[in-house]
């Protein structure tokens, strides 16, 4: 093999990479916060909501979980404008990630809610809490605490999956790698570098979520 690796382009193109990292982080930040919020709402609807709402949420969850993220993204970015909903590439990417993580986190959070002992609901009711108050204070927080590790892995998976938003020209880290390889013809090096950055981001994100978890759920951390 007579191939010479060359990384000189890094000096010239690192601003693109930094910008790409910024967009990737921004996407996952918005995606995670709104996606988990959507997931909580859907989990409530599926576990405790009114009967008419359950099949609707179930259909949403099953549709999203059984189709590729790439197609969801294309449908939102290319398909929705024909209904008159024109979206920028970053908006489309954000919406796709929220909708995607919403469905997955719904199932994870629902598992947590359904593993709550029945006595907890009764205890909340006996303290004259409304069903919503019981859900909010008694059921939800311990449920989230139980499923936090699973939820964290799902957030990392969605972050890694976000690499496909480069396909609708959202300028994330993968977009930067594509740009660099088209300019320098150093495809292998460009993708090696961006892959390594993704690996580091994944590890850091996992750590960050563990820290966030110990802040939100201090009781377990104290033990």
């Amino acid at each position: 093999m007579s191939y010479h690796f060359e990384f000189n382009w890094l000096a010239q193109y690192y601003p693109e990479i930094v910008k790409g990292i910024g967009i990737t982080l921004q996407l996952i930040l918005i995606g995670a916060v709104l996606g988990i919020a959507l997931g909580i709402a859907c989990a409530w609807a599926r576990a405790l909501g009114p009967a008419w709402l359950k099949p609707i949420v179930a259909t949403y969850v099953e549709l999203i979980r059984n189709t590729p993220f790439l197609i969801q993204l294309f449908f939102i970015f290319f398909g929705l404008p024909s209904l008159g909903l024109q979206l920028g590439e970053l908006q489309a990417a954000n919406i796709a990630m929220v909708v995607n993580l919403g469905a997955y986190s719904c199932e994870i959070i629902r598992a947590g809610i359904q593993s709550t002992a029945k006595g907890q609901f009764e205890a909340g009711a006996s303290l004259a809490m409304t069903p919503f108050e019981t859900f909010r204070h008694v059921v939800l927080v311990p449920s989230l605490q139980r499923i936090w590790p699973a939820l964290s892995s799902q957030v990392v998976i969605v972050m890694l999956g976000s690499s496909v938003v480069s396909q609708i020209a959202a300028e994330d880290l993968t977009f930067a790698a594509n740009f660099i390889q088209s300019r320098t013809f150093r495809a292998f090096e460009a993708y090696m570098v961006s892959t390594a950055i993704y690996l580091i981001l994944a590890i850091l994100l996992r750590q960050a979520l563990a820290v966030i978890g110990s802040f939100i759920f201090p009781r377990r951390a104290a033990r």
Partner: protein
Amino acid sequence: MTEFTLWDILRNLLLATRWTIVLSLVSFVGGGAVGLLLLFARISARKAVRVFARCYIELFQGTPLLMQLFIAFFGLGLFGIAVPAWLAAGVALILWAASFLAEIWRGCVEAIAKGQWEASASLGMGRLQQMRYVILPQAMRIAIPPTVGFSVQVIKGTALTSIIGFVELSKAGTVVTNATFQPFTVYGLVALIYFALCWPLSKSSQILERKLNVAHRNH
């Protein structure tokens, strides 16, 4: 200008679905074979082998599948091999699926009670014999639902191979969109075809899990 009927669109998409199915099968079977080797490495008695398997799994689970596809596509070329898209797609998906299957199966092997290892060791079995006759037959039972569930991830993963130019369902969707200018219909149909492939698998995974749990309770 040619008019496209709904049937024209659907027919072309269904023709491309063949390649999604073939690639999924190859990736799943190949991934299973490599994953089994990786599983043995992951629970090997030698530390160096265990560390290697852990790094492999961390690397493939911690980086985007799309990047792995790009590296397979552009990287294999460096060794003087002309890489068609289908080869890069197959190699990357097999290696990627292996890392997940190995980790799923490790969980199942570790769920087997320790006494089973000790009992088989006391019968003078070697490590391979223990795995072959005692551990794997039991682990396989619990492994079936999550393995079937992961096959859905493999099918969805094949959609990414369209980006390196392998013509399967997603790529066909893009091609047909470019010809018909009906992205809403086309991507809607593509999504429904994926759903038709994946949902039965997801459902059967859930049903199998429930059945196994019932079996567990009766023991």
